[in-house]
């Protein structure tokens, strides 16, 4: 366990190694990692949420929405990054493209399943009260779909954080993965320290999204009362696919 206490020292020194003054600080690399990940998640949400919500709202395209998710599972992130490097070369553009490719499908699938699965009686009641399509989506389907929509967003965010660090293996420098890819300079203690930071970052990201989900979920709607529907994707919802 000695190497783990050295790793904590490394974190305490903010990622600096005595005798190697040019190394970036741990805080800097963490912020860079968060930046790359958030750009990826942000663009993916802008693309995927409208598609998934709209398809769910009109109850069309279930084959596409669900199979996109199934194929997505079979995309190893390292392979996607590698193929991206072959076509686009090294750089932020390739990394962000890979992140978007990996983050879009779970968001589409879960948003579709969430909206498509809202109780038709509730939607009919809203229509009977004079809601139009947009109002039904915004005031009825969206609040009721929050748990499943967020399951997709959390899955995507987790994947993006993980893939951002893997991008260092494919030559993109500027994330916490750099430390892991550079054991020669950082030694095992630095690599372990960086791994701890990455793990903490992923857990905190998931926790943050879970809190946002809790705030946005209307009282009375919870996953316990509405068990995950079978097509949804995500670690907490992977039953019976």
């Amino acid at each position, binding site marked *: *366990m000695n*190497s*783990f206490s050295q*790793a904590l020292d490394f974190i305490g020194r903010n990622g600096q190694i005595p005798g190697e003054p040019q190394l970036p600080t741990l805080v800097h690399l963490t912020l860079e990692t968060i930046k790359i990940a958030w750009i990826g998640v942000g663009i993916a949400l802008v693309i995927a949420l409208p598609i998934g919500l709209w398809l769910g709202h009109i109850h069309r395209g279930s084959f596409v929405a669900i199979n996109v998710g*199934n*194929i997505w*599972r*079979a*995309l*190893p*992130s*390292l*392979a*996607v990054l*590698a*193929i991206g*490097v*072959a*076509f686009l*070369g*090294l750089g932020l553009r390739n990394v962000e493209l890979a992140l978007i490719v990996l983050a879009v499908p779970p968001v589409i699938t879960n948003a579709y399943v969430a909206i498509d699965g809202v109780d038709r009686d509730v939607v009919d009641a809203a229509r009977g009260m004079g809601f139009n399509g947009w109002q039904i989506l915004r005031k009825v389907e969206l609040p009721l779909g929050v748990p499943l929509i967020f399951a997709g967003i959390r899955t995507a965010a*987790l994947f993006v*954080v*993980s893939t951002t*660090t*893997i991008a*260092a*293996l*494919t*030559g993109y420098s500027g994330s916490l*993965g750099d430390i*892991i890819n550079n054991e020669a300079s950082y030694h*095992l203690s630095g*690599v*372990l320290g*960086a*791994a*701890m930071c*990455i*793990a903490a970052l*992923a*857990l905190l990201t*998931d926790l943050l999204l879970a809190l946002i989900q809790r705030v946005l979920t209307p009282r009375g709607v919870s996953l316990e009362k509405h068990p995950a529907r079978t097509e949804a994707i995500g*670690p*907490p919802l*992977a*039953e*019976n*696919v």
Partner: protein
Amino acid sequence: MIVFANGPVIPNFGGGGSTFACERANRLFCPNWVSQNWSSVLWPALRQHIVLTVIAVVIGFAISTALALLAYRRGWVERPVVIVTSILYTIPSLALFELLVGVPGLGLSRTTAEVALVSYTLLIMFRNTLTGLREVPAEVRDAAAGMGMGSMRTLLRVDLPLALPAIIAGVRIATVTVISLATVAALIDDEGLGAPILQAISNEVFKTELIVAGGMAIALALLADGLLVLLQRALTPWARVHQ
């Protein structure tokens, strides 16, 4: 360095003569390179990848099924198991592999890779198996009891067969997940399809190898997924009636 023991990974890269024009130009796909390196690099990597995956899924299946059966009988077991396996699942693969390298006795080895890969399968298969068991209708279980079946026989002949679609669905997701993560495992255990990918990127970017090895990883995952769907259909003919 098992795969590459017999020479450089890209033997033709930068070599002379017009035969290697494609490699020297670093085009996207050089069929010549693929055929020359299939038996020495690509095929062994594919085989190792399959072995890594099968070992991880089998061990993960054994552990998660045991835990699910325990949780089925003793409900309080579920919560701690879900909390621990969720945390394991959430830790990014790169971080988990490296953290395990720091554990005394593991280091850079296949064992370390397998421990990490197994830990990613637990949440998926545990939840699927437990949900499958719990969704067995109470009437069916009552009927089994009424026919004089003991709890062990009910489990083996009623609960488990009815839970089979959910169980296999879990195996399916776990298998594809492991195939995906096993490419990253090459960082700490130089084998599997991740090894040629990392090698192709380590010095100069060699595009053909990236595309072929990456494509093989994706194809393997899709193929495994398809095969498990067929297995699921074959093992549970009654499930099709409901759909």
